[in-house]
């Protein structure tokens, strides 16, 4: 069964009076356990599509259904709650909360869900161990390298056991070793725990690892290729 189902998604921006179709009639279906990449040149609509799938931006028309829930039938607060419980986000610039330590950043999502503090910290600790940061749990983001911060971001994205993780250019700010390590870790989580990852990326290393690659041009999916990924 598809985790994400979009139908005839259109997003039109108004740029100084000129309508721009950033997403132009996209139908996409993503199944549980996929490790997919949305690729395309700058301005092709990758981030916009990811934002709409993640419920951060509203489409001009069309629908997005996640596990059977029509995302845009929810009001703003319900959509925030939905994101909190069902969607994990990894951003290009890590975007950890700078005043919280690694473990607090991961536990934050669970605390927002109203889980008891002890349970939050226990789960956060396990997640940080699973991304190889058990010795960094009490470090603040500015005490961590870019790669380490992005691992914390992945752990945070997984904290609520989401239906899928949206990763917008997750390796863009990382050196090649950190990128490779991060991708290894995500691939392993995908393989072992069947976590669904959807990437928006330019990075060939990410594209090489993806089992499905959707190419976006001018807001349309021009190719959708499923294949065996290259091993690291």
């Amino acid at each position, binding site marked *: 069964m598809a985790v994400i189902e979009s139908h005839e998604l259109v997003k039109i921006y108004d740029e100084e009076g000129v309508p721009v179709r950033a997403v132009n009639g996209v139908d996409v279906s993503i199944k549980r356990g996929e490790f997919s990449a949305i690729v395309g040149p700058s301005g092709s609509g990758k981030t916009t599509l990811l*934002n709409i799938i*993640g419920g*951060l*931006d509203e489409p001009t028309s069309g629908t997005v259904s996640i596990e059977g829930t029509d995302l845009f039938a929810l009001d703003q*607060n319900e959509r*925030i*709650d939905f*994101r*909190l*419980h069902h969607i994990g*986000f990894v*951003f290009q610039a890590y*975007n950890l*909360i*700078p*005043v*919280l330590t690694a473990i607090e950043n991961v536990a*934050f*999502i669970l*605390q*927002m869900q109203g889980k008891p503090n002890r349970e939050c910290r226990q789960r956060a600790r396990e997640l940080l161990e699973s991304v190889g940061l058990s010795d960094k749990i009490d470090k603040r983001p500015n005490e961590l390298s870019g790669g380490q911060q992005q691992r914390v971001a992945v752990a*945070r*994205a997984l904290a*609520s056991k989401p239906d899928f993780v949206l990763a917008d250019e997750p390796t863009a700010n990382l050196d090649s070793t950190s990128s490779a390590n991060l991708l290894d870790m995500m691939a392993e989580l995908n393989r072992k725990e069947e976590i669904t990852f959807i990437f928006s990326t330019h990075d060939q290393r990410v594209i090489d690892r993806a089992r499905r690659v959707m190419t976006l041009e001018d807001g349309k999916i021009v190719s959708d290729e499923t294949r065996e990924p290259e091993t690291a």
Partner: protein
Amino acid sequence: MLHLKLAWRNIWRNKRRTLITIFSIFVAVVLSALSNSMQIGSYDQMIENVAGLYLGYAQVHQDGYWDDPQLNNSFGDSDSLQQKIASVDEVTHVVPRIESYALAAGREQSRASLVIGMHPEKEKVLVDPQQKLVKGDYFESPSQRAALVSEGLADYLNLSVGDTLVILGQGFRGMSAADKYPITGILDMGMPQMNKNTVYIPLHTAQELFGAYDRLTAYALMVEDARSVEEVVTTVRSRLSDDYEVMSWQTLMPELVQAIEADWASGMIMLLVLYMVVGFGIFGTILMMVAERQYELGVMMAIGTHKATLQIMMVLELLMISIIGVIGGAIGSLPFIWYFHLNPIRLSGTAAEAVEQFGIEPIVPFSTDPQVLFIQAAIIFGIAVIISLYPVVHIQRLQPVKAMQK
């Protein structure tokens, strides 16, 4: 708890900015508390001088006396009348007086002076001349033939304790009022105007001098709470016949009320300017806090943080900064207020003259009324609370995608 933790850590992300904001609030509270304490203190001093130390907080006269203050408008003193007034709950003391202007003379000089006949015991709660004695002795009875002369007048007339003072004037119903009295004491009235021309003689002696036996020109009333004086006046008035007028110190001294109101208004303008400066300072801080964290707020919303959580967090940050500044300012202003309460600023030049014309000692003691501090702290805190509405509104309008656009 999470909100508090986030807010507390956030305010220390930019230590310098937070400390500058706290310091500006601290200074604002100190300045506004000092300024207000000085104002209230000076008014208390004025009221205390004029009402608490001379006029009384209210007075009862024969109807028409205040407009035409002459002995013909005096009234008959009686125990029943005094008791009727004293039976009003808030009235603590009823002080009888008879007073009139007359010529006070020594061997070579004379001067028009205010001759006040007062009850030696009862007057102790009001003017208390005994405490103002710089030389000599106080009266022993209301019938003693003696006079207490203010220092300035004694100097002018070149008289001292043991000398004879001659009083020459007009008594009740046009009678001649002339007599001589041994000076038993010299008084420092504390107020320059009163120091120049005041003579006290015992009540019955004064009534005899003026030929106004058992008559008074005023009952000066002391009340429990100076702020409730208007209610006291209404109550006393309701218990007396129309033959009497009952006036509060505000009615007796409208010039003083106007002076206080004018000064209060100018003080308020100064304070408003101060509040605006502080308000803009805090607003600048909050603008920067919101602007530089716009992206972060967008991310927090994206990962599932409700707007209300972010709003609470931002408001808490501002409240924490304000509370630290306000409490610090309140504590910081205490030593200054206390110092100037004990060591009042002494006015000089035209400022002193302006005050002295009301018969007020030209000093500015600071008020230690805790309300002054509390109100100023509360106003500055209130300004911060109002300003904290800005991030609330801003976050309410924030969309995660727009917030995350760099």
